[in-house]
C-alpha cells in the first residue's frame, strides 16, 4: 500500500514566488555587471551592455522594461483620456496643439524641507534620464505598451527632501481655462478642476513610479501630459496625472479627482486588479490597442513582483 506523505518542506521554507523572480533578475543583472567587468579588453560574445563612451553605465535601462511590442507613437498620441482638453479620445490631440509646456513652473509645498516654486528645468536638472517600456492599463479596459523616457519619481522626491511626517504625495494639474476648453465649461462640468492625484510615500518611491518627460525618446506630446506626467504602471491609467504644476507632501490621504467624482467606482489606490470589477464593467480582460482579441488582465498589471508587497494585509476589494 502506498502511503502518501506530506511534503517534507514546511511552507515557511518555500521561497515566495516574487523572491524567485527577484533572484532570477538578480542573476541576470549580476552576470551583466560581471560581463562589464570582464569586458575591459575582451569582448564577451552576445553580451550587450549599455556602456557609453565615457564608461558610465547608462541608467538601468532594461530592468523594468516589458519585452512586449510597443504601441505605435501614432496610437499613443491620438487615443487619450485628458478631460481638460475634452472627453472624446481624439479631443486631446486636436485641442492641445497650442498648449504651452514651456516655460513651466512647479510648486513644491507641504511637509518638505525646501518648499519653493521651481522652474521646470531647474527642478529636474541633473536627474539622469532613462527609458522605461511599461504596460499602461486604462480603467476602461484597454491597454497600450508605452516607451516612456523620464526619471524615477523617487529620484525627484529625494531631491525635494520631504520631512519624515510626510506620508503621501499629492499632485495637481494646471488650471488654465485659456488653454483647456473643458475648464471653460460651466454647464454640466465634467470634473472639478484642478485634476488631483496622490500616492502613498512608499508607492511614490517604488522603483516603478516614474515621471515621464518623453515618449519614444522625443519630448512628451501635449496630449500625453507635457511637460511632466506621472506614470504608475501597476495602477489604472487615470493615476497618471498630466501636466503637473503642484507637488504637495502631506500626512493625509489625498482625495483624487475620480474618487471624488464617483467614490463607488474609483478609489485612491486604483491598482490594476482583474478580480475586482468596475461596477459597470469587468476588469478581468482588456483590449490591447492594435489587437483583435481581448487578453486577460494581470494582477497589478503584471508588476506584482515589484509592488505586491506594499499591499500585503490590505483588503483590495475595499481599497480599490
Amino acid at each position, binding site marked *: 500500500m502506498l502511503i502518501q506523505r506530506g511534503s517534507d518542506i514546511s511552507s515557511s521554507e518555500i521561497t515566495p514566488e516574487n523572491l524567485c523572480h527577484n533572484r532570477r533578475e538578480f542573476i541576470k543583472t549580476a552576470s551583466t555587471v560581471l560581463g562589464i567587468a570582464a569586458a575591459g579588453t575582451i569582448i564577451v560574445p552576445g553580451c550587450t551592455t549599455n556602456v557609453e563612451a565615457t564608461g558610465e553605465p547608462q541608467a538601468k535601462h532594461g530592468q523594468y522594461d516589458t519585452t512586449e511590442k510597443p504601441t505605435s507613437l501614432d496610437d499613443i498620441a491620438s487615443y487619450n483620456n485628458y478631460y481638460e482638453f475634452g472627453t472624446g479620445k481624439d479631443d486631446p490631440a486636436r485641442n492641445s496643439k497650442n498648449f504651452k509646456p514651456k516655460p513651466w513652473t512647479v510648486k513644491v509645498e507641504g511637509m518638505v524641507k525646501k518648499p519653493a516654486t521651481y522652474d521646470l528645468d531647474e527642478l529636474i536638472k541633473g536627474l539622469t534620464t532613462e527609458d522605461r517600456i511599461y504596460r499602461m492599463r486604462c480603467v*476602461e479596459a484597454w491597454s497600450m505598451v508605452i516607451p516612456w523616457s523620464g526619471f524615477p519619481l523617487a529620484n525627484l522626491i529625494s531631491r525635494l527632501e520631504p520631512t519624515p511626517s510626510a506620508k503621501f504625495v499629492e499632485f495637481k494639474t494646471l488650471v488654465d481655462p485659456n488653454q483647456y476648453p473643458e475648464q471653460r465649461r460651466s454647464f454640466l462640468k*465634467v470634473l472639478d478642476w484642478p485634476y488631483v492625484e496622490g500616492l502613498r510615500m512608499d508607492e511614490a518611491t517604488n522603483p516603478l513610479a516614474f515621471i515621464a518627460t518623453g515618449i519614444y525618446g522625443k519630448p512628451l506630446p501635449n496630449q500625453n501630459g507635457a511637460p511632466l506626467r506621472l506614470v504608475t504602471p501597476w495602477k489604472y491609467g487615470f493615476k497618471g496625472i498630466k501636466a503637473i504644476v503642484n507637488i504637495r507632501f502631506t500626512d493625509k490621504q489625498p482625495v483624487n479627482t475620480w474618487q471624488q467624482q464617483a467614490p463607488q467606482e474609483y478609489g485612491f489606490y486604483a491598482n490594476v486588479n482583474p478580480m475586482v470589477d468596475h461596477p459597470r464593467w469587468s476588469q478581468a480582460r482588456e483590449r490591447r490597442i492594435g489587437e483583435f482579441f481581448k487578453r486577460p488582465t494581470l494582477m497589478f498589471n503584471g508588476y506584482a513582483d515589484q509592488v505586491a508587497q506594499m499591499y500585503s494585509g490590505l483588503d483590495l476589494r475595499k481599497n480599490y
Partner: protein
Amino acid sequence: MPKLNPWWILKPAVFVACLLPTAWIGRALWLTYQGLDGGLSANPIKDVTEFTGLWTLRFLMITLAITPLRRITGLSSLIRFRRMVGLFTFFQGVLHWITYIWLDQFFMWGEIAKDIVKRPFITSGMLGFTLMIPLAITSTRKWIARLGGSRWQKIHRLIYISAVAGVVHYYFFVKSDIFYPLAYGLLVTVLLGFRGWHAIRTRTLKPATTYSR
C-alpha cells in the same frame, strides 16, 4: 402617360439615406483593415460599438418623432416611413448587439449572462434591444392582420420602454460627461410627453364633439 407616383422615389431615397451610417462605418472599417486612415481611432472595435449604439438611439428617436410630426404638420403620409425607420432602428440594434456578443465578449455566454444580471449598464441595453425583437417580427402586414389593429398597436407601445431603456443604457455608459445622455433623455421626454398630452386632449375633446352632434 401614367402619373408618376412620388412614393416610388421618396421611399427608396429614404431607404438609401438610412443605409448611410452603416455604409460609412463599413467603409471606415475596410480602410482601417487595409492599414489606411478610415477616420477611426486606435480602438476601432470600441468605435464600432459606440457608433452602432448611438445610431440605434438616433433611429429610435426618428421613429418616435414620426407620429408627433404627422399630428403637428398634418402630413399623415409620413406614416409610410415609420415601419422602415423602425426596422432600421432594429438593424442598428442588431449590429450593436453583435459587437457586444462577438467583439466584446467573444461568445462567452456565461460572462454575458453575468453581465446582464449584475450590471444595470448591460441590463438596460439588453432590455431595450430585446423589446425590439417582437416589434420587428410583427412588423409585417400579415402580423398586423393576425393580431388585429388595436392589439398590434398595444404591443408596439413597447418601443416607449425601449427608448427609455436605451437612454438609461447611454447614461450608464458615459464616465462623467452626461450632456448627451441628458439631451437624449430630454428628447424622449418630449416625444413621449407629446403622446401623453395628445391622448389626454383627445379624450377630453371626444365627449364634447359627441355631445355637439
